[in-house]
């Protein structure tokens, strides 16, 4: 039997909410697939569109940007800028035909270990049928 496709996902987690939420998932020993490599950034507002393009260019099968819920941003409003920016990036990527499932955004608070687990599980589940992301990755 062919080995099941394991998507490679890069997740940009804000330090104060989503990364802390992922820590809570760990402390609570929740289980989720190991496909995600988190990169903790200070704020979802600091995630430049370039990071996303770069991740897909370097072969990510999926990219997640996760920040604090609206109104909860540690930096007051960084996630609002992120919301706008990411919406545009998402529209652009979908416009050229990248599968919408491949690029996602979520609000995960420091208390939402359960949600983090669910977001990751769902993400991996949705990417599996799509197979490897070859559209934007650098040919090697």
């Amino acid at each position, binding site marked *: 039997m062919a080995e099941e496709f394991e998507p490679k996902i890069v997740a940009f987690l804000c330090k104060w909410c989503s990364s802390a939420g992922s820590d809570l998932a*760990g402390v609570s020993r929740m289980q989720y697939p190991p496909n995600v490599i988190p990169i903790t950034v200070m704020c979802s507002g600091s995630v430049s569109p370039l990071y996303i393009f770069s991740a897909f260019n370097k072969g990510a099968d999926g990219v997640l940007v996760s920040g604090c819920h609206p109104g*909860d941003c540690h930096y007051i409003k960084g996630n609002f800028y992120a919301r706008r920016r990411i919406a545009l990036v998402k529209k652009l990527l979908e416009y050229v035909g990248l599968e919408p499932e491949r690029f996602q955004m979520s609000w995960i608070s420091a208390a939402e270990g359960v949600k983090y687990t669910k977001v990751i599980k769902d993400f991996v589940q949705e990417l599996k049928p799509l197979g490897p992301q070859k559209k934007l990755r650098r040919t090697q």
Partner: protein
Amino acid sequence: MKRTGVFVCHCGINIAGTVDVKKVSEELSKHSGVVHAEDYIYACSDPGQNIIIDAIKEKKLDNVVIACCSPNLHETTFRNAAKTAGLNEFQCEIANIREQCSWVHKDMEKATDKAIKLTRSAVQRVRRNEPLEPISVPVTRRALVIGGGIAGIQSALDLANTGFEVILVEREPSIGGHMIQLSETFPTLDCSQCIMTPKMVEVSKHPKIKLMTYSEVQEISGYVGNFKVKILKKPTYVYADKCTLCDECTKVCPVAVPDEFNLGLTARRAIYIPFPQAIPATFTLDIKNCPGLLPIACGKCTDVCEPGAIDYDMKPEIVEEEVGAIIVATGYDLYEKELLTEYGYGKYPDVLDGLQFERLLSASGPTMGKVLRPSDHKEPKEVVFIQCAGSRDPELHCAYCSKICCMYTAKHAMLYKHHVPDGQAYIFYIDIRSGGKDYEEFVQRAVEDDGVLYLRGKVSKVFEDKGKIKVWGVDTLAGKDIEIDADMVVLATAMRPSKGADELARKLKIAMDKDGFLAEAHPKLKPLESVTSGMFLAGAAQAPKDIPEAVAQASGAAGKAISILSQERLYHAPTVAEVNVNLCTGCGMCVQVCPYDSLSLKDGKVEVNEVLCEGCGTCSATCLRAAIQVKNMTPLQVNEMIKAALGG
């Protein structure tokens, strides 16, 4: 080429149980630039730290990565170790292979692979970290306390008595908060006003306290140690220094509105003093209800005011203050009448809330300490107390327990019996929560000495019937339905964050919990701190509390504030934004997005105020020309981390 060391912690079996730590260290040793890689059972232990320190010295490492638990736990530990070995603290980074890896996965091979990527990613980052020293800023050695209830008063007095100047801001015309409305306090039954008023007077007389009543915080900028506050002083239209408290004005005022202090049980005039012991002792003209400023002027009060203390032209004033620390003690309000309709609250005059009943019991209250029901001023003989009115009701009302209601209801019933010895007090309760010094004994006293009848169960309906208030309920212990023809019903209504606290929280940039109470920085370890450094929480603004708890937290918050104010200088994380002026075109987009006003344009280029910058990086994602970036989390670093994360 920089020399990197990698240390992989087993954390007992916490990591080693799911991650092949030997393999991680072996793989990392092949990573370009990594000259030392090893694993150890507990890296955070003293011997573990010594291994790191020795390796840094012996192998002349330029930077190290510790693959271990979350950076929230031991980043400081390992950075201190790195410092001991002569590195800059930023030459140490953590790869979180426990919370984000070993604890959440079971498949050893895959978890190991992920741990390798996480660690490589941290290596790519640390190799590009700049050594940075904390930014030092002087401290403004004054404090702001927001809220003049018992918590705010306690904080202000503690700070002032330590020798620091305090600005105490209160929204109402007088300080005192809800405590000054209470009759007696549990479990000692000492008179609330008697213990409160001396503190109020002390505040008003204290040379270090600048009291600003009828004022609201309008804007806050700055950062720990150096906040700038704009305070709106609402006009009282009465010059306190001229007012002789002769009370002639209230006699001529034609307006009658419900009296806030007595919670609508009595009326007051448009010009009024909230209560006799008010601090500051002066009258206030309630402009919303005064016809004096309408086109057809009334002006009666000015006519009778001999000292000429009333001035309709008084204008709001903005006062700017600089402080180093802020204590937020905005207190609570009772659950809104409109939201709690099922008990006839707001519909029947003899259904009261706890605070109204306090006023009825109070010697200075509307009935001069006699328990008389509002509708007909007769002495109620059957009184039903309903606990958890709005609390512990996740479906309809508040999910949380308001904590103090069990105790004050026992007190209410007991005091009622003292006032009306031949009356009967019934208490419907779900549980009795009487944890606290002498609290349980107090409840027992109510039952045993004063014959208060506790009924375990919920009230299903409250309605008026032939001059009585019928209360239908159930006694779940006896297993029977209960019907009481009550003369009065007293609700132990839920405590809510005080109105407007949410707006203030937003101005202060401090978070709120799901119920709107101000969020502490950590539920266990930082109960006094807000998430914004330099701002502390006191009293019921943070969660329902009784008086001793509020006072204790207030003193604690004052202590925390003092720990800042007692320093000459504070140190600020140096991971702030920096501008490449060669690339900056001065478009100002970063200036617009900065949440801290730390960026400004000067001569067509952006400048960073490093003290204001919190390093969130929103500017760098906004900049189209990569002209601004946050130190040690630069786009270059992130890009290298992305590569490492994807195995490249």
